[in-house]
């Protein structure tokens, strides 16, 4: 559910702010109906299970239980870190794609897209192979005699972050790239000509101009991170608990669908609040 909200945001960005006319609305109708009946209604039913059973106690528990608050906070933190790292690593990549000569741009795009087209499961397993007890890194270090016992790299927050940033970075790179590409290089020349040293050109002109893309990409990455499951489940190995991992446990292990529904509702609420905040932050650029 979170992914579709994020994608909607990115599409809105990509296709501008024009008012759709009536025919365009009709064109979207099949998709809307499809999503409504096969996605929104089942999900809503799932999240409203407790209410259907005449109780709100699971919601209260999900919002007050110390463990659950901790997991929510943890999820939020991980999503925030993933977003931050996607920015720090993805921004230069987007810039490179923007300014690189055609051949290098092609190679760059290839490097970003290949993992993007590979299943998340495959990519996550690849990290298991690399980081595992008997993985590539440990084997190499062991045989080189640098370490005596294998390093425990998996099942830790850094491993989860690494895997998630890897999977989600393209979602940051593309919106930023699309904005960077449209920036008039004369603006950069103008700023330099008016006396701005390079760092000021970046901070006062380039960064603000790319901000819509950055916020759009960050929203996407953050929202996808909040609901991320496979990577934290596999690379976290139960030690790094994100809310979606918890939901899965309540569904599959404890068979407590009521509470799983309540947790999902909480996840959706937190995500929507974060999304709303980011939208609000983006409002500043409406003026230009």
């Amino acid at each position, binding site marked *: 559910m979170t992914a579709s909200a994020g994608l909607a945001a990115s599409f809105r960005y990509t296709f501008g702010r024009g008012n759709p006319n009536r025919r365009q609305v009709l064109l979207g109708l099949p998709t809307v109906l499809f999503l409504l009946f096969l996605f929104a209604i089942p999900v809503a039913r799932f999240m409203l299970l407790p209410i259907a059973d005449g109780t709100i106690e699971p919601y209260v528990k999900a919002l007050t239980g110390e463990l659950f608050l901790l997991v929510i906070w943890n999820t939020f933190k991980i999503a925030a870190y993933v977003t931050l790292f996607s920015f720090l690593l993805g921004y230069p990549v987007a810039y490179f794609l923007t300014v690189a000569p055609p051949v290098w741009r092609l190679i760059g795009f290839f490097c970003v897209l290949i993992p993007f087209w590979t299943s998340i499961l495959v990519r996550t397993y690849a990290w298991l192979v690399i980081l595992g007890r008997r993985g590539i890194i440990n084997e190499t270090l062991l045989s080189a005699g640098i370490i005596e016992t294998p390093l425990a790299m998996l099942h830790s927050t850094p491993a989860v972050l690494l895997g998630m940033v890897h999977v989600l970075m393209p979602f940051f790179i593309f919106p930023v790239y699309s904005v960077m590409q449209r920036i008039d290089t004369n603006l950069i020349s*103008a700023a330099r*000509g*008016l*006396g701005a040293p390079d760092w000021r050109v970046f901070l006062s002109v380039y960064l*603000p*101009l790319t901000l819509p893309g950055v916020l759009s990409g960050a929203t996407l990455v953050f929202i996808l991170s909040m609901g991320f499951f496979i990577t934290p489940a596999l690379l976290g190995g139960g030690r790094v608990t994100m809310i979606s991992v918890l939901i899965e446990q309540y569904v599959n292990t404890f068979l407590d669908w009521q509470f799983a529904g309540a947790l999902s509702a909480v996840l959706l609420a937190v995500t929507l609040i974060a999304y709303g905040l980011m939208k609000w932050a983006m409002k500043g650029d409406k003026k*230009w």
Partner: protein
Amino acid sequence: MSDLSLKGIAKHFGDVVALEHVDLELARGEFTTILGPSGSGKTTMLRIVAGFEHQDAGQVLVRGKDVTQLAPAKRNMGMVFQNYALFPHMTVAENVAFPLRMRRTGRAEIRERVGWSLDTVALGGYEERYPSQLSGGQQQRVALARAIVFDPELLLLDEPFGALDRKLREQMQLEVKRLQRRLNLTTLFVTHDQEEALILSDSIAVMNAGRIEQLGTPRAVYAEPASRFVADFIGESNLFQGRVRAITNGLLVIETEAGHTLHARARDGLVEGHSVSALVRPERPQPTDGGLSGINDFEGEIIEAVYMGESEKYRVALDGGLEFLVRWPGQGEARTRSEGGRLAFSISPDDLHVIAVDGSKK
């Protein structure tokens, strides 16, 4: 000492020679226009002066100081770009304040200078608007205000009026000219619009394929072009190829390839046998009542008549096949000068400009 001098500037991009060898001097307060067709290297030249592009050879001197190694930020030049290049995320006031903030000017002074600058371009009261909320002409003025607010040593303008409609363009031209005069700004102006160049400039550098073909006052480049290219590029012209047959009584007798004889005022350096081009501007011929007795008397049939409001243009086929373009003040009513009619005119030898063919580039 000139404010700006370019010495032997050359620049190529891969195989393309953008500038071959350019020398140019601008005195304090001079308004010089770089005029030339698309791709002749005008923008490249301006970008080299501003420091956005680095020349392969030659020097750029500002007030006698070599700025070749200086970054654009250190050159202290105000530039207006063709598309204005206003920062869309900043208000008008912030845009204009930008160069001052980069120079760490104090708050109070910034406010004062920005106010002065916006008043100068008649945009007081627009401080809080964003560029997207302004018309093209207003954006243009903001760009100008931003370029002059920090007392630049040079003002560089790259086709700043290209995007404006005719009326606004003419108005802005006059405003820029007035401003430039008042502030005594040394200005390098780029355009491919010859009319604009003639109106605004103290001197015009006509560029062709990476070279300056002629540098001179508007009057000089219009009335006495140094080459066929300049004659052709600026204004409308009647250009005839020919040869000097004789020199009599201080007049050159030129025989055109089509067999006509033209008389022109003699000029130093031209002797019998020289290949020349003869130029007559279309407004120069004087109407006559038909006699072909004097020198430079012609008569022919009007094959095309175009009414242009303030003037009327006739294409005249002379007997012998030569075509002649004549432009005279518009008449109140369509009279005898209509298509199919006859037109007789005479050209004073002083109105015939002779260009030695050797002196012209292909």
